[in-house]
């Protein structure tokens, strides 16, 4: 399974970013290969509108099975995300990546859709 986190840093001990559209960066974790990959998200910081849409497209290009974030995606971003089968889990905004991953594994996170 491939999981994408909204993150403020690039390690397991880094804090999650509660925001989706304007998350500082994304960390993708592939459970099959144990590979951690960092995806920057600088371009959305400058966008006045539509950051969530572009972020959604970018995250879907990674082809994840699951997205773990804090506050969740907005209405328009959800329209983009829902074109794929990805599942989004929310409520991990105050955790580290490791805590968020464990919470997800223990079914402690809420499914946004």
């Amino acid at each position, binding site marked *: 399974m491939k999981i994408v986190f909204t993150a403020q840093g690039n390690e397991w001990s880094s804090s999650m970013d509660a925001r989706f559209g304007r998350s500082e960066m994304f960390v993708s974790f592939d459970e099959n290969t144990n590979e951690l990959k960092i995806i920057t998200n600088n371009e959305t910081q400058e966008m006045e509108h539509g950051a969530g849409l572009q972020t959604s497209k970018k995250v879907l290009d990674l082809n994840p099975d699951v997205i773990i974030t804090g506050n969740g995606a907005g209405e328009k971003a959800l*329209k983009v995300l829902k074109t794929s089968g990805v599942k989004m889990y929310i409520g991990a905004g105050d955790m580290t990546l490791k805590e968020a991953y464990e919470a997800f594994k223990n079914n402690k996170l809420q499914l946004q859709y």
Partner: protein
Amino acid sequence: MKLTIASGKGGTGKTTISTNLTSLIADMGKNIVLTDLDVEEPNSALFLQTKLSNTKISNKIVPTWESNDCTLCGKCAKNCNFNAIVAMPNEILIFPELCHSCYACSELCPTNSLLMKPTRIGEIKEFETKNFPFIEGRLDLGQEMAVPLISQSIRYTKEKYKNHIMIFDAPPGTSCPVIEASRGSDFVILVTESTPFGLNDLKLAVETMRVLDKNFGVIINRYGIGEISVEEYCLKENIPIITKVKNDKNIAKLYSKGELIYKQIDHFKNSLDEIITFIGDIKCVK
């Protein structure tokens, strides 16, 4: 003459000044029309007794995706400066709320798969009041783009009341909606208050008006609260202070009941008279 009442900071009294000033000038027998351009949250009508006389649907032109010939090349999404199009592997998603109707996606589409069509964004309503015509632009819920409706509301006013004095009640802030509400006017009145917040946002509004090359003056509302920094700033920058409206709890009481102020509070009417005298001195720019 076209006069825009703007502010920078919200809640400084744009609508109070707009509705009372328009009504007082109408009482004097002048032809005047008031247009509420705060289309995201119009509220002038709350202070007027209105009778609906006309409704016009406001549209903006946005692309619709015709999938037949589309090769999903994604040029439309790349060319959109406003993030209104997302090219997915199997479809093109369009977000009309974000569209600025620039036609780039449609014109540059190799297969003509994006057709520009009108979509409703709100309404322009015209009302009769006791003493003057009143026009209001109102965006539909969920719509984000105020500028097209502001521009259409101004055009409606100009076409129908070209020989009237036109008062435009602008939205707060200093971004595109305020610029649209101000750029065609002969003069802009900036309503502020003598607080640090008022001063901060006044400075932003002044910068905006200078970039637009607009003539403008300032009304200091709730004069007597806060501090004198707004006055000092205006003096230093050579900005005319049109009037100072005294801070008075009775004004707030009348406001909360949706009543016009000048009919009951003399010092407020005196301030309006100062505005009217000042306006008389403004030359109309064609």
